[in-house]
């Protein structure tokens, strides 16, 4: 009889063999976090503070998870996760000075040693390809184009090569934050983007591709989490309307398109501001806003031999995917007919 039947689920079906059918909606108390991995990130044998670490996990069936954290002052970060996950690998992206690095597999402890970035600036391979070279004697670039470029990202600086970027503050959850410091980088991405575009290089640093351009930076990423379409649209308005920028760079994206965002892009275009958008790094269809026809979608390019072989692997295995000057489209770059051009994504 059923009411006399004693059934111990935990003994009959061990928990780690029960697939998590609704893991996303499951109460975390029932998932448990009884497994951990400690990742240590170093560069030149020294711990790297503030490196972004992504841990990739594989679970039962097609279950995949990614966890993101930053390293502490000892270059360490601790991840906790349910016991039915196995570690696929990690990607460590240092705050600066070192290449990102991927390590496959893992266990309780993973050590990542990031190779140093070249310090023989101000020219990189992409300057040579585009023939916009710095004169090593006087530090002046051959590219003297003076335009105004807006950057909508995680903020900018502080950085010695970006002292002249106009800080337009932040727009977070519909509120403009104009107090001093609000426009500073909440991570490192925006600083990297501003540097690639218009860095005026300090000694030994790589210079921007257009150092004579006037940059205007707006932070739309909060300290934690993604940027929403309303803040991005407000930032487009601010840069195009209030600062009359010629171009807006958006190295950000989402898998779905927002018509609110698209309206702002079209408004800006009518004012004479063109939005340049990254195609995305998910090796699939171009994401938004790059996929809108009113923007210029840019894929990520690399040059063979310029990226350490043990850095984040982006080099295609098919030799037919290499073009002139051994330039290739990175493995991770999104693809589609919306792509207008490529940029130095592995710069």
């Amino acid at each position, binding site marked *: 009889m059923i009411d006399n039947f004693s059934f111990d689920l935990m003994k009959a079906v061990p928990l780690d063999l029960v697939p998590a059918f609704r893991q996303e909606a499951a109460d975390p108390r029932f998932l448990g976090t009884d497994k951990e991995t400690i990742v240590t990130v170093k560069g030149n044998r020294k711990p790297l503070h503030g490196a972004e670490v992504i841990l990739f996990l594989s679970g039962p069936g097609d279950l995949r998870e990614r966890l993101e954290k930053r390293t502490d002052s000892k270059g360490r970060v601790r991840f906790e996760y349910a016991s039915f996950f196995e570690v696929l690998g990690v990607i460590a992206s240092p705050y600066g000075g070192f290449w990102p690095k991927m390590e496959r597999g893992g266990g309780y402890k993973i050590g990542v040693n990031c190779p140093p970035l070249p310090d023989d600036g101000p020219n990189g391979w992409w300057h040579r390809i585009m023939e916009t070279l710095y004169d090593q004697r006087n530090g002046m670039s051959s590219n003297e184009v003076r335009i105004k470029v807006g950057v909508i990202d995680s903020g900018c600086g502080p950085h010695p090569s970006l002292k002249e970027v106009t800080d337009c503050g932040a727009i977070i959850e*519909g509120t403009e934050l104009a107090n001093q410091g609000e426009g500073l980088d909440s991570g490192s991405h925006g600083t990297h983007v501003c540097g690639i575009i218009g860095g005026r290089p300090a000694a030994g640093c790589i210079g921007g591709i257009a150092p004579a351009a006037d940059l205007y930076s707006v932070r739309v990423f909060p300290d934690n989490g993604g940027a929403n379409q309303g803040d991005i649209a407000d930032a487009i308005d601010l840069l195009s309307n209030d600062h009359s920028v010629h171009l807006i760079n958006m190295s950000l994206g989402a898998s779905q398109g927002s018509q609110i965002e698209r309206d702002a892009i079209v408004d800006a275009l009518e004012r004479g501001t063109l939005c340049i958008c990254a195609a995305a790094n998910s090796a699939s269809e171009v994401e938004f806003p790059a996929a809108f026809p009113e923007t210029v979608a840019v894929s990520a390019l690399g040059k063979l031999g310029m990226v350490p072989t043990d850095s984040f692997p982006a080099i295609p295995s098919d030799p037919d995917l290499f073009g002139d000057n051994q330039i290739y489209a990175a493995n991770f770059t999104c693809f589609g007919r919306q792509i207008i051009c490529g940029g130095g994504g592995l710069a």
Partner: protein
Amino acid sequence: MSEYLIAVKRHKRDSAPPNWEEMLSDIQGLILKNSGQSRRVRVDATPDAIDEARKRLSDSCHIEPVMHHHPM
């Protein structure tokens, strides 16, 4: 409750009801979060409330769930 963004469609700016934000404020289950601060209004709404908002304003307004973008 989920978060949504509502903004007048660009080709409807001349014809949208001037009191469109007020038309949202009396919907039960809908909370305006930043009315008057931006052209794009943020709301928290139940499924029924957002359905009511769509009935009233979808002709003149975009009504979208918040979409989070990531850096690339």
